[in-house]
C-alpha cells in the first residue's frame, strides 16, 4: 500500500462518503428523471445520459436514512459497476482527495442495518471519518 488511494467524496446529511475514483465515470448535476412504477422504493428513476439510459438509485433510501429535505436537488454520481452504469443520488459533491492507506479501519461490529454491507470501512481523517462505500453492493437493489 504505497500509493495513496484516491476517493471521490460526497455528503449525505453530515455523513462523509467516498467512492474509489476508478469506479466513478463522472459526476453530473440533477437530471430530470422518469419514475418507474412498481420498482423498488430505492430506484429514483431513469435518466438519459447522452443517449444511454441509466438507472438512478436513491442512496439515502438504499442506506435506510431519512428522506432528503430542503430545496437542493440531489447530484448524480455515475459509477461503473461491471457491465452496468448506475447513478447514485447524493446530497452534495465534495472534492477528490488522496488518503493515507494506513488510516483505514474496518467498521465496528456495532454497525448494523443496511449500512453494514454498504460501508466497507472508514479512513480516519483529521477532521472527520471518510466512509468507504461498497459500490458493488450499493447498486444491487434488493427486491421489496
Amino acid at each position, binding site marked *: 500500500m504505497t500509493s495513496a488511494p484516491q476517493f471521490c467524496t460526497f455528503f449525505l446529511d453530515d455523513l462523509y462518503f467516498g467512492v474509489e475514483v476508478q469506479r466513478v465515470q463522472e459526476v453530473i448535476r440533477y437530471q*430530470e*428523471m*422518469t*419514475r*418507474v*412504477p*412498481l*420498482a*423498488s422504493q430505492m*430506484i429514483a*428513476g*431513469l*435518466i*438519459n445520459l*447522452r*443517449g*444511454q*439510459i*441509466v*438507472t438512478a*438509485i436513491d442512496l439515502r433510501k438504499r442506506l435506510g436514512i431519512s428522506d432528503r429535505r430542503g430545496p437542493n436537488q440531489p447530484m448524480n454520481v455515475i459509477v461503473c459497476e461491471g457491465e*452496468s452504469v*448506475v447513478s447514485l443520488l447524493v446530497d452534495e459533491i465534495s472534492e477528490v482527495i488522496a488518503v493515507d492507506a494506513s488510516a483505514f479501519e474496518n467498521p465496528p461490529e456495532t454497525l448494523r442495518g443496511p449500512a453494514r454491507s454498504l460501508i466497507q470501512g472508514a479512513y480516519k481523517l483529521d477532521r472527520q471519518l471518510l466512509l468507504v462505500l461498497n459500490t458493488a453492493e450499493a*447498486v*444491487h*437493489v434488493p*427486491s421489496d
Partner: protein
Amino acid sequence: MSDLQDIVKDFLVESYENLDQLDRDLVRLEQDSASAEELGSIFRTIHTIKGTCGFLGFDKLQSVAHAGENLLSKLRDRELTLRPDITTGLFSLVDAIRQILANIENLGAEGEADYCDLIRTLIALQVEPSNSARDDEPRIGSHPASGTGIQADPPAVQVEPDQAGPSSDGRHSSISDGTIRVDVGLLDKLMNRVGELVLARNQILQFTGGSSDTELHSAAQRLNLITTELQEGVMKTRMQPIGNLWSKFPRIVRDLAIHCGKEVRIEMEGKETELDKTIVESIKDPLTHIVRNAIDHGIESAAERLAAGKTVESCLRLRAFHEGGQVNIEISDDGRGLDLARIRQKAIDRGLITLDQAMRISDREVAQLTFTAGFSTAAQVTNLSGRGVGMDVVKNNVEKIGGTVDVHSQPGQGTTIKLKIPLTLAIIPALIVTCRGDRFAIPQVNLLELVRLAGDQVHRGIESLHGALVYRLRGQLLPIVYLCRELGLDDTTSAGEDAAINIVVLKADDGQFGLVVDSINDTEEIVVKPLSPQLKGIPVYAGATIMGDGKVALILDVLGTAQRAHVVGEVRDRMLTEHRGDAPKPVDNRQKLLIAKLGNRRLAMPLSTVSRLEEIPAAAIEQAGGQDVVQYRGAILPLLRLASLLGVSTDTDPSGELQVIVYSEHGRSVGLVVDRIMDIVESSIDTLRSGQGNDVFGSAIVQGRVTDLLDLPSLIRRADAALFDNSTSAKGVLA
C-alpha cells in the same frame, strides 16, 4: 501466433462465403452447362482455396481442392463437357471442403476423414467416358457429408434467375471489390452515437426555434437534414437483402427433391428486400423448415401429380416484399394443399379440440391448428419431417421476434405460408400513451384498435362483472385494465369525472384486453434499450426508450401487463382445460353459455344460438301489429320481453337502454330483452333439475350459482308462433 490465427479466421470466413456462391453457381450450371461465367467463378473459388490452404499448411484440403481444380480447368477449357456425374462430383467436392473447413474452425485441424476416394473420383471424371463408361459410374459416398443416397441421375432442380433486375452474372466480382467486412458491434456503437446526435439536434432545433437569426436557422436546418440522412444511412448498414439467406435454398431444395424423388423448381421474387441482420439470422431456421415441409409433405409424388392433371415438375415460390413497415415473406407450393378433414380428425384424436368445436371452427382456423405443438399430419415419419416438432417451433421463433405466421391452403392447388416480420428489432413502431403524466410506449404489434368513450358512454361503457371490469366490444366482453391502477399510480382522476375514456385494445397471447390510459399521444418509431438489472425483475416493462425531447419513457410489455392484471391467466386456464385430452367430463357436455340476469334469476343459453348482443335505447322502440319492434340493420326486429314471458318481475328502468339478445333462425331474428348480460362462460352442463315447464331445459350450477337453461326455440314459438311457423321440419330439428 495470433496473426496466423487471424489469417486462418479470415480464410474461413472468406471460404464459407465463396462456397455459398459456389452452390448457387453449380445449381445454375446444371441448367446451362455452356455458361463460361459460372465455370470461371467456380474455378477461381476452388483455386483461391487451394492456394491459401497450401500457404497455411492444410495439406488434405489442398489435395482435395487440387483434384477439383484440375477437373474444373478441363471444363473451363472445354476439354470436357459437363455431365450429371461431374456435377454430382463437384457437389461432393464442395461438401468435403465445407467439412474440412468446419473441422479447422472447431478443432483447429483438418480432421481424420479420408478423402482419397473422392480425389480418385474427381480424377476419373477428368476422362471423357467411353461407351462403357456409364456402367462404372463414379462411386461417391466415401466421405460422410455426401450421404449415401445421392444418385448421379440428372438432378431435378432448376433455378430461375431472379425475375427482378438483370441477371446477376458478372456482378459478383465488382461487388466484392467494393465491400469491406465490419464488426456488427462497431455498427451498434455507431448507431448509439447517431441516436445521441439526434437528441442533440432536437435540442438545437428547440433553441433556434426561439431565435430570429436567419443564418442560425439555416445552419440548424442543414444539421437537421444531415442528421436524418446519417441516421438512415447507419440503419441501412445493418440491413441485409433476404437473398443472402435464400441463396442457400436452391441447394437445399435440390438435395431434398432428389431425396424424395420429386422434381421441384424454385422461384424467387423480391430477393433484394432488406431486413435487419439479427432478424435475418433468426428467420433462417423457420424458413428452412417451411421449405423442407413443403417439399416433403406439400408437393405430391410425380405419379400423384400426373393423376391430378398437373405437370410433373412442381414449383416452390419464395416471395418477399415490404408492406406497412413490415416484411412479408410467402412460401408457396403448388402441391396437394392441407388435408383439412385429416387435420380436424387428428386434432380431435389428440384432444386439441372437441368434436363440437371441430364442427364449428372455420377451415382457416383448422389450418392454423398445424401450428399447435405436437401436431403433424404426415402419415409416416420421414427423416426430413413429420415428427410433430416443427410448425409450432416455426411459430414460436417468428413470434419471438414480433412476427406472425399464417397459412392458406387450397385443396389440390397448394399451400402458402405467410410470414410477417418487423424490419428491425432495435427500432419498433410504438403507440405513446400518457398515464398520470408519465409517458409509456406500447409496441404496435400488440395493438388491435383504439376505443374512445365520450359523453354518456363514460359512465356506462365500462361495466362491472362481479368486480371485474368489462367493456362490450361489438357484443363481446372485453376485460378492462386501468393502467394507472396496475402500476400503482395515483388513482384520482385528474381530468374530472366526465373526461373521455381511452381504451387501447391489445392482444396478449391468444386473448384480448382493453387498457385504459389517460390519453393517447401518437405513434412513433422508438429505439428499444434494455433495462438495467435492477429493473429486470418487473415483468410489466419490456425496456425503455428515449423520446424526441430527450426524456426517458418506459416500454410496456403487453403480455407481462396482462399477466399482472390476470387477464390472460384465465384465458390460458380455459385453453388448458379445453386442451386436456383426459378431461373427466365427456366432451359433448361442455358448451359456451351466455349468462343473463332477469330479476332474481340467472338464465343461460347456448352461445351458438345467439347471433348478437345489442343495447337498444327505449326511445327506439316502435309498435307494429301490437308488438314492440325496433329497426335493426335495415329490418324490423320484434322484441320479446323475457320477463313477462317467464313471469319474472324485474326492477329495471323501462325508459333506459334495453339489453337485447338477438336470436336468429332461418334468416329471421327476434330480440330477447333481459335485465343484464352477465358473462360468457365455458361450462359443462349437468342438469340437476329438469322439467319446470316447456321453456326451460332444466337448472344447472354454473359459476357456483343456480342457473336456468333456456330452451329458446320452444320459448320463442310459444311467444310468437307466427314468427317461426314457416316450417314444421325446422321445429323438429331444433326441438
